[in-house]
């Protein structure tokens, strides 16, 4: 009994005690190393991803071009500068055999087989040049046109030995350059990898995201405000809360089926259109925003509300002057997460037909459009090997878009941030 009341003093030098101490320190160190290892591992994955994307994709932003001297004055083109300045320019250019003239010029400049050095769409550059400057028709001009994809691959990376030899010869004659491909950022999908562009898909993504944000953000924030500040706490609101939490966890393909059934089959909105894509993704993003917004509103100290009521503010004034501005950083964080998920989404958009081949950027919300992740998916499935680097380049564009979107949201969040 007595030994229990007055325990023997701890012997710090006892070997058993020393061992226990050493074990505790080891556990501490181990945990620190594990944590550091986890951080390094995830950073490593990110580096590998970025390096592989950059090494494969940067080539997609540059293009090999070949100088093509064309003697328009002595060609057999039935065109004259006056028509090209008039309203019938497009028709006249489409009717003229520019493809034939381009091939003939290539053969004249580079010998038999010279036309196979150029991209199939090379003549469209000749057409664009003529349209921009009809006076070219009176003289001899050099037009820089994209090289065929095998020459492009040989100029940038490893190609077939025969193609490498052609590239070396053209480079020596200063008739081949590899330069930044602004065309890639301006044009839309095409069948030839040397003629494709990302603008169509980028614009589709912009329109779709705009619709998603304009619907999901106000509806999400207002529902969160109502549920937190006004709704009575009863079985119905509990049911709604559980439903919203469940909705946030529903796989995205289900929203695609919902969009197909509701927006296309019931409301007869156009298939493949950005408005339908945006509405479908808004359904998917809204629960994420509601949950984040409710948590942010809950975190606003009640003393702020009490003080506002105390000086005579009405409930609406309390909410819009005090609660919402203070909750805004948290709401924006939730919105970033929801929008980032929506931007990378493919599955629901396949269901509503946004995986189409479209050669023109969408002019409006009802026009057929595609989005960046779907464009990446379509290109990855292309037969032609020139599409490999275009796929990676499109992924880089998607990442930049994502970073820009998050950058704006973080800027806004920091502006609203208040500490107390």
């Amino acid at each position: 009994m007595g030994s229990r009341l007055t325990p023997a003093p701890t012997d710090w030098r006892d070997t058993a005690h020393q061992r226990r101490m050493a074990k505790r320190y080891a556990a501490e160190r181990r945990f620190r190393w594990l944590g550091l290892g986890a951080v390094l591992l995830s950073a490593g994955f990110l580096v590998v991803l970025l390096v592989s994307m950059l090494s494969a994709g940067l080539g997609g932003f540059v293009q090999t071009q070949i100088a093509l001297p064309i003697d328009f004055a002595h060609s057999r083109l039935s065109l004259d500068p006056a028509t090209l300045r008039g309203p019938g320019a497009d028709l006249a250019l489409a009717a003229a055999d520019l493809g034939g003239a381009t091939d003939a010029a290539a053969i004249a400049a580079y010998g038999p087989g010279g036309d196979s050095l150029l991209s199939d769409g090379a003549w469209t550059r000749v057409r664009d040049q003529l349209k921009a400057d009809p006076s070219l028709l009176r003289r001899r001009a050099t037009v820089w046109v994209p090289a065929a994809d095998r020459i492009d691959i040989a100029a940038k990376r490893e190609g077939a030995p025969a193609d490498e030899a052609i590239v070396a010869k053209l480079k020596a004659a200063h008739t081949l350059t590899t330069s930044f491909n602004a065309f890639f950022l301006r044009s839309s999908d095409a069948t030839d990898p040397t003629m494709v562009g990302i603008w169509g898909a980028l614009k589709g993504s912009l329109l779709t995201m705009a619709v998603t944000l304009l619907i999901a953000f106000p509806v999400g924030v207002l529902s969160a405000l109502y549920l937190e500040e006004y709704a009575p706490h009863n079985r119905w609101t509990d049911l709604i809360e559980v439903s919203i939490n469940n909705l946030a966890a529903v796989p995205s393909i289900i929203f695609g089926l919902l969009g197909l059934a509701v927006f296309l089959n019931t409301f007869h909105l156009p298939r493949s259109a950005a408005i339908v894509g945006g509405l479908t993704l808004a359904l998917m993003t809204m629960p994420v925003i509601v949950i984040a917004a409710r948590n942010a509103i809950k975190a606003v100290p009640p003393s702020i509300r009490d003080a506002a009521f105390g000086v005579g503010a009405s409930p609406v004034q309390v909410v819009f002057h005090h609660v919402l501005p203070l909750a805004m950083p948290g709401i924006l964080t939730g919105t970033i997460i929801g929008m980032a998920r929506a931007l990378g989404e493919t599955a629901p958009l396949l269901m509503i037909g946004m995986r189409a081949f479209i050669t023109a950027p969408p002019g409006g919300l009802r026009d057929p459009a595609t989005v960046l992740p779907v464009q990446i998916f379509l290109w990855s499935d292309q037969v032609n090997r020139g599409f490999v680097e275009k796929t990676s380049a499109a992924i880089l564009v998607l990442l930049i878009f994502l970073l820009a979107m998050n950058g704006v949201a973080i800027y806004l969040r920091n502006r609203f941030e208040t500490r107390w």
Partner: protein
Amino acid sequence: MHRIMTIVAASALATGLAGCTDQANGGGAGSRDQIKVVGSSTVFPFTTIVAERFVEKTPGVKSPVIESTGTGGGMKLFCGGVGADHPDIEDASRRMKRSEYDLCKANGVADIMEVQVGLDGIAFAEAKSGPGLRLTTTDLFKAMAAAPDGKPNAAKTWKDVNPALPAMPIQIYGPPATSGTRDALAELILARGCEAMLPDMAEVREKNPAEFAQKCTRIREDGAYVDAGENDNLIVQKLQSNPNAVGIFGYSYLEENRDKLNGIPINGTEPTYETISRNQYPGSRPLYLYVKKAHLSAIRGLREFLKLYAASWNPGGPLVAKGLIASPDDVRKKSETIVNWETTLDPKTLP
């Protein structure tokens, strides 16, 4: 507060603007000024080439919208009805089925034109460093069927299938069940191998198609046949990393990757342009377009689009340059007649 009001006002303004563009585009479900195509992923690249040329040749026209949904999925959309909400053309990597025609008819799509655009081959391939397999349709049936002799397939190596083949594990990467290529694989390779091995199966096929499918064209699911998804480039990559594997995909993928892959001869015939176009290679199959006759006058440019398609499918033409195999002369002539005279399909000829 101020900032919030600004944001609210900005979003309201943006919504308003979006509404304006909406109205400017107008029309919507009522009318349509561009061609809509759905269907097979095999025909998709060829239709996109024609669409591109169509836009280049006809300035001012809106570019056609081509969606790759697979033949079966496309048929459902195509047969959904007549009008601007429904597609004008269906790309198909097999003929329309009787049941699909009936669905079309039930929804008011009665006059359909059937146009054969060319041929495609299902190529079997291995890596350049592979063992140089030579297979027959019977070998493939024995190696791939779920139950070639009534019992679950026990063949682990190619030697189990045919003693003349190397003792190398059977590993096949092929198309998923939703793909038209899989249908063609079942029809052209497995059914033929099955009938060659079990002659009485031809009779079963007539009387009981369900039993025939169960015995002949069902593919094993024990891991020897790996469904590689719709992405054929993935199969090409897998073959490179695994020289013992066999890959199954459309002929154009073999053609594009000739420096990495070898075609496997089937029944002694190599998969090449010539053997497929002369119908000597067992895996050659026709590709079709199905067109709604009622849309020809209603949709601007549809007639011209079809004519351009017909002008592009000849040997040496732009489609052949991109991997299509041209149909024999008489078939091309017949298809051209269908396009020019707008002849509709006789449902009695459908399978």
